């Protein structure tokens, strides 16, 4: 395998990699994002500013509205490379300027989905060269080596694999000599999340930019597609700090880890919210998918299947997961359900028999 298997045509597919960034800065070095004009854009990229702005707007709106970035591909290949890369960089800067956690996470994930498609193409064409590119790009995005046989070391697998599905749990995987075998679509899934994390890091690390008013206007355009949080939480002061912190983060559009979503869903179901109400609070999650969310809430609730449903994690468990924000109002409670003097329900660390959800309502 060569050290640098990427050709310049690959850069727009993976624009967040260092070599891609280096490539595009050649084109963008002379552009002043505070004062955009046709002449300088034309000189650098071969298209007018209005056209470039249209491309950036399209990329951003598709990302926020549809959850996957779309890039116009009507340009000749070399021009496409530069234009596509420029639209990525400038879109990222606009997203940074929005200073909105939902927009930042949603855009990062949408770019991850876009890039995932290219990676899967490389894997599916079954050529050695394609696989080399995939392996190289995977490492660039995730910091973890993927072998040509699509294996990850156990520590890398644990760091990157989604935690919430039984099939991904290490206990259900085949391990050999420190490696875990992953399937092509699983590589895509892991890669998407890793790219999203990488882009989020790039955007969050940018200084607050000064933008040309026409670019600034794009922020308003994309914010229109940001979902509004539902009004199902009426008395947050009756919830413990762990729940309120997670609700606030979710409302702000932060990408909550699965453990925090699980805590919210189990807690809100136990205090009496309906499955629909609980599912609706996740609408502000950057990776929200209505069908998947409803399914997961139903699984957690167990009501449809006539099961008891999952238990609320204990305070101890939440502490180990970094989700506990205990303050003096918590007193000596061992379960979020006991907050405010309630007897509480059974938690995952076991305990007394559960009260009915209505009784346990804070």
């Amino acid at each position: 395998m060569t050290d640098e298997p990427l050709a310049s045509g690959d850069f727009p597919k993976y624009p967040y990699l260092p070599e891609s960034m280096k490539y595009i800065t050649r084109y963008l070095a002379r552009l002043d994002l505070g004062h955009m004009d046709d002449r300088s854009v034309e000189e650098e990229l071969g298209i007018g500013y209005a056209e470039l702005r249209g491309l950036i707007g399209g990329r951003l709106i598709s990302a926020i509205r549809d959850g996957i970035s779309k890039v116009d591909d009507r340009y000749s290949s070399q021009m496409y490379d530069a234009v596509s890369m420029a639209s990525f960089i400038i879109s990222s800067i606009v997203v940074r300027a929005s200073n909105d956690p939902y927009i930042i996470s949603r855009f990062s994930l949408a770019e991850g989905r876009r890039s995932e498609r290219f990676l899967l193409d490389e894997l599916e064409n079954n050529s050695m060269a394609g696989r080399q590119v995939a392996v190289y790009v995977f490492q660039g995005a995730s910091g973890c080596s993927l072998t040509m046989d699509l294996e990850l070391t156990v520590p890398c697998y644990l760091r990157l694999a989604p935690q919430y599905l039984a099939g991904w749990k290490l206990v259900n995987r085949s391990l050999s000599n420190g490696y875990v075998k992953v399937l092509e679509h699983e590589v895509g899934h892991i890669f998407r999340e890793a790219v999203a994390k990488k882009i989020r890091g790039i955007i969050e690390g940018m200084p607050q930019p000064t933008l040309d008013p026409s670019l600034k206007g794009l922020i308003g355009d994309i914010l229109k597609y940001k979902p509004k949080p539902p009004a199902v939480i009426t008395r947050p002061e009756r919830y413990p700090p762990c729940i309120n912190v997670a609700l606030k983060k979710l409302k702000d559009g932060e990408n909550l880890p699965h453990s925090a979503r699980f805590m919210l869903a189990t807690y809100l179901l136990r205090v009496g919210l309906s499955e629909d109400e609980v599912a609706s609070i996740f609408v502000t999650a950057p990776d929200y998918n209505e069908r998947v969310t409803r399914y997961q809430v139903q699984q957690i609730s167990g009501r449809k299947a006539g099961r008891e449903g999952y238990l609320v994690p204990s305070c101890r468990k939440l502490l180990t997961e970094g989700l506990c924000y205990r303050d003096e109002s918590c007193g000596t409670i061992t379960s979020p359900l006991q907050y405010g003097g309630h007897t509480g329900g059974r938690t995952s660390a076991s305990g007394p028999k559960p009260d009915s959800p209505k009784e346990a309502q804070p």
Partner: protein
Amino acid sequence: MSVNQREFLQSAFRWYYFNRQAEIKIPTRFREREFGFRDFDGNMKRHISIAEERELTALIIQTIPRSIYSSSSYYRFPAAPMDQKGWIEGDLIFDLDLKEVNARCKVKHDFWICDDCKLVGRLPPPLTCSRCGSKRISKVEWICDECLGKIKGQTVSLIQMLHDDFGIRHDELSAYFSGNHGYHISVSSTLYSSLSSRERTEIVDYIRLNGFTGSGQRAPSSALAIKVDPSVSMDVHRIFRLPGSLHDKSGLSKKECDEQLSGDPFDSAVALREDPVKIRITYAPQIRLKGQVFGPYKDESKTIPTYAAVYLMLKGLAVVEAT
């Protein structure tokens, strides 16, 4: 514990720490580790750091602790309070103990004892003593060749799994007899050292088969649950008994073993002196130490070697009469 008893036990430990200093294994990267001592009154002192190897030996000799621990993790400031220590990374550790292994022989040899009137009975323990009404009832766990064999078998299987499934090299793994009823495994691998508590829990789940659906890609050959203590492996701030130190419930030493765990730990880990001592024994099932069988005993005085007397005293079954 009365002053006499405590002084006797402490003098037995003192003899070991004075005369067998070379047995204490100062861990690698000791400057980055937290040390902890528990004294004979049960007080725990943590957040101790050392700059030189001899500093640890000096501290041990000065204080003669009942238990000595060192962290499996490395810190920037090991003496600082927990939230300011600056965690760098940590060894992977596993604790296999009789408590976790459901050996069938337990019903034959485990028992309860009333802490007040010393009445003894078979498990399960009553809520109150039938003779004196005390609620201070202790369960006493015993060990026999059958359950030792079972815990050994589980430990050897874990070692094999760590090599075959996790790719741990032989030079990265150390196995120890815990000094009481089990084995400790410590893995110093740069690949695994930075794992978070959550990631370590996934490894524990793999070993214990927690969440195993049976429909995944796992090879059936590795589908046997090994009962490691989950709280030990997932806690990155745990302090763990120092190799070569004495166990507070037996007086035996935590002793390094080969990967086959060959030999009898109740021979090789006997560390205290042989000098005879007269003790009063409430009750004790048979135990073999250093190849010699002691007991069973019931309400009798016996003169036996110090190591055997200390073993029974630390189990709460005997008191020293005269030295």
